């Protein structure tokens, strides 16, 4: 009998242990002067190569009393969305784009009046609501094409084309001259890369209002519209077999190495990708350049759009808001975060990265998309989600165009555009009814 009792005691003890383990732990070191804050972000590569550690060492020289715990997440946007249902999403974090502007105040601490902050920073329109800014961009990115100029020069093209016909002709020439080279690599399989095609909108039109116009345009994929031009180019390069031969199994990490080694001509990406590709083969770095989408605006000039990357934000539930703010200020004002990542610094008057400097010299103008009209801050996202087209967000539509282009599906380009127009038009109607 005794044995049974011992067993019983053991089982109940184990149960108790299990239950207490589920409870929350409370740290009691408040008397200590040093504050510990958690900074959650998506830069997993910086965690593994020790860059964050070096950054925080630098930060602690100025703020020795703030200890920063860095937490990086691979599937950042996806996991953060779930975590933000609790109040455990760090002290400082990158504000996911899926959060709707009217909900900013529910999740994050306001950082100041937009008017005041605008004197010092650029790119604030994106994460401001009713005149208050809830995030400060970590950097701004230009959207365009990463081009290996050596591949172009080897095919006898010394200047990057400025219209889509010349562009496609150039890619054909590359393929003719050297069949081993992939003229344009789509990164079809990565799942996020092809959204960059959508980001070309403001640059092609030179119109900061281009996205706002989509809110009322019930047929934005008709011939002559900018989205038609973009998708038509994508369809044509796929149809002419100027892309990788097996897009379904394309590989993002490998594509960077291949481009650095002159095996890929063009990839449609952001300026942030330039340093990553240059790093893959340092001897060839000077040949990796950044170009605008091959098109001119109506005024005959070329534009390139810049938009905010992830914004730093402070958790509204944080107990160390002052320390958190100090970290953000340091990252934006004093660190080299933006330059190291190939982006434009948020601080006004800061130096541009190399890739963009040369572009500015050649007369390309930078434009920043305008803010959404007041009261319609989340309308674009709502229409986009309702239509399931995934403009700016997913790759499904772009993949569908490539599938049709290489002949995997029997859809014609006109059919796809017609379907997209219907979906977009219906979505405008259904969102308007709510």
């Amino acid at each position, binding site marked *: 009998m005794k044995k049974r009792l011992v067993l019983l005691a053991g089982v109940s003890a184990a149960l108790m242990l299990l239950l207490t383990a589920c409870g929350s732990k409370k740290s009691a070191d408040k008397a200590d002067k040093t504050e510990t804050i958690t900074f959650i972000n998506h830069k997993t590569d910086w965690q593994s190569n020790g860059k964050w550690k070096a950054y925080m060492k630098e930060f602690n020289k100025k703020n020795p009393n703030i200890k920063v715990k860095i937490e990086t997440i691979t599937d950042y946007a996806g996991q953060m969305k779930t975590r933000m249902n609790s109040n455990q999403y760090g002290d400082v974090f990158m504000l996911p784009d899926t959060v709707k502007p009217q909900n900013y105040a529910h999740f994050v601490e306001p950082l100041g009046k937009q008017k005041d902050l605008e004197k010092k920073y650029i790119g604030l329109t994106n994460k401001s609501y009713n005149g208050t800014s809830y995030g400060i961009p970590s950097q701004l990115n230009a959207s365009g094409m990463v081009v290996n100029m050596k591949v172009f020069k080897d095919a006898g093209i010394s200047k990057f084309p400025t219209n889509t016909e010349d562009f496609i002709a150039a890619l054909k020439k590359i393929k003719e001259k050297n069949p081993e080279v992939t003229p344009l690599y789509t990164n079809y399989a990565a799942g996020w890369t092809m959204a960059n095609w959508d980001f070309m909108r403001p640059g092609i039109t030179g119109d900061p209002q281009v996205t706002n116009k989509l809110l009322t345009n019930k047929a934005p994929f008709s011939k002559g519209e900018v989205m038609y031009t973009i998708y038509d180019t994508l369809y044509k390069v796929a149809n002419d077999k100027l892309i990788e031969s097996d897009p*379904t199994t394309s590989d993002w990490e490998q594509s960077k190495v291949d481009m650095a080694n002159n095996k890929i001509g063009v990839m449609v990406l952001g300026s942030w990708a330039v340093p990553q590709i240059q790093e893959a083969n340092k001897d060839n770095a000077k040949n990796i350049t950044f170009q605008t989408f091959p098109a001119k605006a109506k005024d005959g000039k070329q534009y390139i759009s810049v938009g905010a990357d992830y914004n730093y934000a402070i958790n509204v539930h944080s107990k160390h808001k002052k320390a958190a703010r100090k970290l953000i200020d340091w990252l934006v004002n004093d660190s080299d975060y933006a330059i190291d990542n190939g982006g434009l610094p948020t601080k006004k008057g800061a130096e541009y990265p190399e890739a963009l400097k040369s572009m500015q010299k050649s007369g390309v103008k930078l434009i920043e998309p305008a803010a959404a009209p007041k009261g319609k801050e989340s309308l674009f996202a709502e229409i986009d*989600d309702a239509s399931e087209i995934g403009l700016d967000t997913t790759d499904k539509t772009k993949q569908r165009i490539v599938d049709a282009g290489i002949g995997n599906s029997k859809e014609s380009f006109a059919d796809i555009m017609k379907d997209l127009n219907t979906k977009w038009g219906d979505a405008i109607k259904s969102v308007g009814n709510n």
Partner: protein
Amino acid sequence: MKESRFDYRKQKKLIVVLFTIIPIALLLVFSYYPLLKMIQYSLTDWDGFSPSSHFVGLQNYKTVFTNPTYFSVFRTSLYYFIATFFQLGLALLFATLLSFKVKFANFWKGILFFPYLLNGVAIGFIFLYFYKQNGTLDTVMNFIGLKGQIHLWLGDRSINNISLAFTSIWRYTGFNFLIFLGAIQSINPEVYEAAEMDGANRWAQFKYIIIPGIKEILFLNIILGVSGSLSVFDIPYIMTSGSNGTNTFVIQTIDTAFKYNKLGLASAMAIVLLAIVVVVTVIQRLATRERGAK
């Protein structure tokens, strides 16, 4: 004199309760509570993280049933459904072979069961490199002189679902095999001996002893196969993420919830899938019961 304060029956009860409380708590917390919550979400237009949402009644269910894009992806499930029969055939073949006297029987059993032990993500990547252009399969085919038969195994829409279904067969055959083997070995060996004495050959033994003996298990495996083929997820998600005509209902659900931020609609899709699987299972149960009665 009493040995303890509890009598034996009370102790037994207490032990039973204590031991079952953990699995039941886990079941309630991680299965039934989320299910209830999902039913609740399916009646709203919640986007997955906003503090507020609206009650929309059965609107989400209406969308699932009226919009053809949501149901057309079940076509992909057909490939996996057909593959199920190849899978069961192979599993039954190996289980029968290994139930007779074979050299290194345990070694072969281990080899056959091994793929099932591997993580689905790992399998996805193994076969991604296997099917890739100039990957393992292409290299092998080049080597044995079948260069002309090389396709884009995942890129060519006419065969990519077959490639994926083959991966599924490779992965799950071991599991079916093990169930069959267990069932076959539970048949009394004296029956075989008697059959051998009566001059029955291996084929007759298979037809008249093994098949009737494992009929129930066979049907169970078919049910598992059907519900499995309706809810295929990890292999196509990892290898092609549902692009190029390999989309399945579950991938569609995930995309709806997390790419288009329609968690309410996605919950409704999940409930619909659950209902379909339950209906299929009940129908097959009824069918097998009638057979058993006759």
